[in-house]
């Protein structure tokens, strides 16, 4: 019998949920003397949710064995993460973790918008340069003047307004 990839994925998720409920949850949430009654326990709600998730995943695993396989679409099954959205996500996360901190929101935002525009297929140089600049100028006006909110600045040159 050939085991379907979705059954393997669900089995992995189920195992992770069990480990989370039985091991990680009690390890992370300590019980104070006041919190030992069922109604007072800080573990009550997370444990209830973990039990619900384990039951649902077990049900899903069972369904994956008994249900007929889903029909493939016109282009066949498109499993896995697609290249363009995953690339876009990596660019966004890189700026959220490092870029905005190092270059400030406005310079970082321009770089992020340029990279995303190119990734999405734009090839006209004036659009690639002008569009992010206009976008960030609009955000600058909106946040700094209309909403009076200060977004992160480029820290290496003190006094720079962006």
């Amino acid at each position, binding site marked *: 019998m050939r085991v379907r990839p979705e059954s393997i994925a669900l089995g992995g998720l189920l195992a992770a949920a069990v480990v989370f409920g039985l091991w990680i949850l009690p390890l992370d*949430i*300590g019980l104070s003397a006041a919190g030992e009654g069922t109604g007072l326990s800080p573990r009550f709600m997370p444990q209830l949710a973990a039990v619900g998730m384990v039951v*649902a995943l077990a049900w899903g695993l069972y369904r994956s064995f008994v249900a007929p396989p889903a029909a493939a679409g016109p282009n066949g099954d498109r499993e896995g993460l697609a290249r363009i959205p995953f690339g876009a996500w990596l660019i966004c996360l890189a700026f959220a973790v490092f870029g*905005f901190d190092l270059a400030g929101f406005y310079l970082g935002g321009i770089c992020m918008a340029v990279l995303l525009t190119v990734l999405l297929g734009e090839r006209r140089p004036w659009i690639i340069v002008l569009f992010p600049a206009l976008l960030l100028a609009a955000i600058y006006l909106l946040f700094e003047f209309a909403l009076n909110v200060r977004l992160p600045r480029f820290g290496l040159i003190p006094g720079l307004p962006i």
Partner: protein
Amino acid sequence: MENILEGISLALNFNALAGILLGIVLGQILGSIPGLTAAMAVALLVPFSFYFDPWVGIPMMLAMFKGSLFGSSIPAILLRTPGTPAAAATVIDGNPLARQGKGGKAMHTVLFASVFGDSFSDIVLIFGAGALAAVAIRFGPSEYAILVFFALLSLISLHRGSSWKGIVSITAGVLLACVGLDPITGTPRLTFGNAELFDGIGLIPMLIGFLAISEVFRQLEQPVRRLGERTMKFSSRPEDNRLSGKERRALLPTLLRSSAIGTITGALPGLGSTVAAFIAYNEARRTAARPEEFGKGSLHGIAAPEAANNAVGGSNLIPLLAFGIPGDVAAALILGALLIQGITPGPIAFRDNPAPIYAIFVAMLLANLVNYLVGLGFIPLAKKMVSVPKRLLFPAVLVLASAGAYAMRGSLFDVQLMFVFGLVGWIMAKYKFPSVLLLIGFILTPIFERSIRQTLILVEAADGWLAFVASRPVLMILLGALAILAVVVIRQRLKMNRYKLPQEPADSS
């Protein structure tokens, strides 16, 4: 009476009116851009509403929803690309009519039906929510726990996919809501020593991540092309670009029936506007004098789904305002905006501070009027709005979303969380896990946890469960009523499965 007058004065001041106007204009523009769903557009704008006075921000949010629902029907008609799943039924007759050169007439029909359905359900909301809140004021923690549990249960049972996926989504939302300090004992939960998580996970990164970012990633999977290059010819004859008085009168029975269908559907948690639109469309075709015109550009075929899906918008606020429980993603977003502004809807608000609730009612009715007037001017611009290329739209959405997520708490951690949730939401959509249920689970957990833990403490003090239930007649009535309602809802789900719904994102439940 004094509270009603105070509510009217709150909603009728210049700033609130400006908020309504701004919300309608933004909603119609964003909603009409292919690729920006109504929920996605509003999720992006929720953080900005915080910077306004509550009586600018809240009317603006409500108006934005109404405007975006109308706007999202425009690409459905002109490009066969519904801006929101609820507009999918509008495509069936809207696009054929537009292909006959009568795009103007189709858009005028949509506008008229949208405002009619919206106003109908708002009036029902005004009378229905107060009456329900008067009952809800007698509810204790156990009644609330049952009510929230039922809302979650019905959302799972009515989700149009596997129920187990619904449960996984809701429990994931509950777990995410548990992150932070325990509300009763103050013990850190699921923070893993990270101080940024002690305040819990912010609602804004969750909403933007799951609704807007994941939707961008989902749409990026399609081949990126310029949608605006497909042109639609418009007839120059005036009668093809407007809706006559005779046509409006002929539509009235369809509009009334469809608005009633939408209002009833919206008051039940989980059914949603897509279901209402298709039920209303089928009902209009079934009762039509000339059913053979349906699918070929029938005005009734456009008006029925539009009136129904807009009517859902008002009536799904009934459980939100009466009990503080959102029934779908639109209500969840509005609840998020209300909480951000420091307003907690529910029976206590009706009893102790009803003026803001009346102000919301007045703002909703006013927004309908403004939606109609602005819509009349917006229709000629619609052709241009549907031609924004996605390769520019999506980078703009991602950068703007980053700014919005940062601005709320001044934390880059929130921006990182937003993108992580965006990835999770995208993967969930790929595998048909309803991320809207995760969001509703997240939003309802604080009230559910507080109620259920208080109930457990009360039961421990009483002589067991049976004695506790027997001592609370309201709880017994509620349990019986909910059992009956559960049977009705499950039967309705079985009936609903007979309707052929189009493929749509998992979020539309």
